[in-house]
């Protein structure tokens, strides 16, 4: 079953993130990906995440596709203008990549090429409309194309953005622009997430809750301080602290598994997107403890 079919079937889907490395040695990444094979509904390949220059998403998507994975191509608007984006989308299409996640992209200021000229010729909402147009056989200027794409397009949303109102307005625009599924920024407070889902459920789109694996109390504090839109509640930080240093990661895995179980059992959303950030090999264990394997 394809990712799209899985989502539409009502199955609780699971995706995880694979980050292409900086440099040409992809052995480790392939090793991590192999551990996920057959367990996920799709694997999400990041596009120079945090504006750190790496292998492009498209190449790794193609490699993973050939290895039997179902990739989701992340596309950001930071590095390519509208010509480049459309051209890469057509390229992805002929390489049989079916899923695309449309994002604006982290600012170069966050990355390792701070002097780069950022492009942002178009942005996430507009990119979704571009994909829709390509799916209908026309480029964004309305020019007829020889052969249309057939993408299943998604977008991102930050349920804990503060203030939330403008974020929700943008979410609605993304729905209107053609997003079929959403992957959220990491959430840790399920009750607050339920509030967001009340707004989201008004629309016929699929929502995958984003889960970032907590590896230590320090990491949680760091995210609270420096990552906008991520709030790790104090009781979770205390839980990791109480477990002691050696058991911190294991506790983080338990928390993620517990959250997944609750999201699924209470039918809160349509699936989860696991971001293990360097601990991709732990994703199967999270799924196992969540009762998904």
């Amino acid at each position, binding site marked *: 079953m394809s990712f799209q079919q899985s989502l539409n079937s009502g199955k609780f889907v699971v995706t995880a993130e694979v980050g292409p490395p900086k440099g040409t040695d992809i052995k480790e990444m392939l090793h991590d990906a192999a551990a996920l094979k057959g367990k996920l509904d799709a694997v999400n390949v990041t596009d120079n995440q945090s504006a750190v220059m790496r292998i492009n998403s498209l190449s790794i998507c193609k490699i993973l596709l050939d290895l039997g994975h179902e990739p989701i191509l992340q596309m950001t608007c*930071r590095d390519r203008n*509208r010509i480049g984006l459309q051209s890469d989308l057509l390229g992805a299409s002929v390489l049989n990549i079916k899923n695309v996640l449309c994002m*604006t*992209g*982290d*600012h170069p*200021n*966050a990355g390792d090429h701070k002097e780069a000229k*950022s492009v*942002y*010729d*178009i*942005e*996430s*909402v*507009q990119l979704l*409309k571009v994909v829709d147009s390509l799916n209908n056989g026309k480029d*964004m200027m309305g020019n007829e194309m020889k052969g249309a794409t057939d993408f299943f397009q998604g977008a*991102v*949303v*930050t349920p804990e*953005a*503060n*203030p939330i*109102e*403008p*974020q929700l*307005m*943008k979410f*609605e*625009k993304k729905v*209107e*622009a053609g997003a079929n599924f959403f992957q959220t*920024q990491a959430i840790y407070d399920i009750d607050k997430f339920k509030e967001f889902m009340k707004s989201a459920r008004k629309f016929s789109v699929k929502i995958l809750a984003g889960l970032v694996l907590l590896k230590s109390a320090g990491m949680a504090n760091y995210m609270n301080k420096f990552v*906008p*839109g991520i709030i790790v509640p104090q009781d979770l930080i205390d839980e990791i602290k109480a477990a002691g240093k050696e058991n911190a990661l294991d506790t983080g895995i338990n928390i993620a598994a517990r959250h997944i179980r609750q999201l699924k059992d209470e039918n809160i959303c349509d699936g989860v997107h696991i971001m293990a950030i360097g601990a991709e090999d732990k994703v199967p264990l999270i799924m196992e403890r969540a009762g998904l394997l």
Partner: protein
Amino acid sequence: MIITKKRDFKELIENIKNYNKFFLIGCSECATLCATGGEPELLAMKETLEADGKKVTGTFLAKTGCQVLGTKVELKPFKEALADTDCILVMSCGAGTQTAVDLFKDTPVYATNDSLFLGNMTRLQMFDERCSLCGKCILDKTGGNCPVTSCPKGLLNGPCGGTNEGKCEVSPDLECAWVKIYNRMKRIDQLDQMRKIVEPKDWSAHKNPMNINVREEKEESKK
């Protein structure tokens, strides 16, 4: 106005090391307000160059340094000094510098300032960038605040995930342009406008180099 900043002095000295007789041009408009090319700065530059053993043949404060013809007329009394000059330093913006390049075909011209942005002066010598001169104004869609300029990503359809309690992820000193726009549109009862998708910007409205002939356009519109 055009906001300028003094260039790194070492870089400037390196550029002009082979010249000895300088004529200095400042500007009474923006560069004066930025304290990069007014009367006091012209004087200070003269003293610095002279202390370095260079000769200053004259100093001149243009009324509006980006006005080519006006500046040409104002420079007439300096004919003699200019004839004895082997390098011109312009202490205004890039536009003022290129006025001098236009007027002095055979003399090297150097800028002493970097040109930064079109700025609003909020208090004395404090400037904010509000407009990027993009060629196609979208203020009507954003409650009068420009996200092309004030959002580091130039987003047209709302905040990114990096908005943080009204601040921008790029810098905690920066207000999130879209939270500001949201608050403003709420206040003026235009949130419905904010719900509409803004189409991709027509960047062809600003193609370097821009030029316009207002007189010709007036004639055209009369026809």
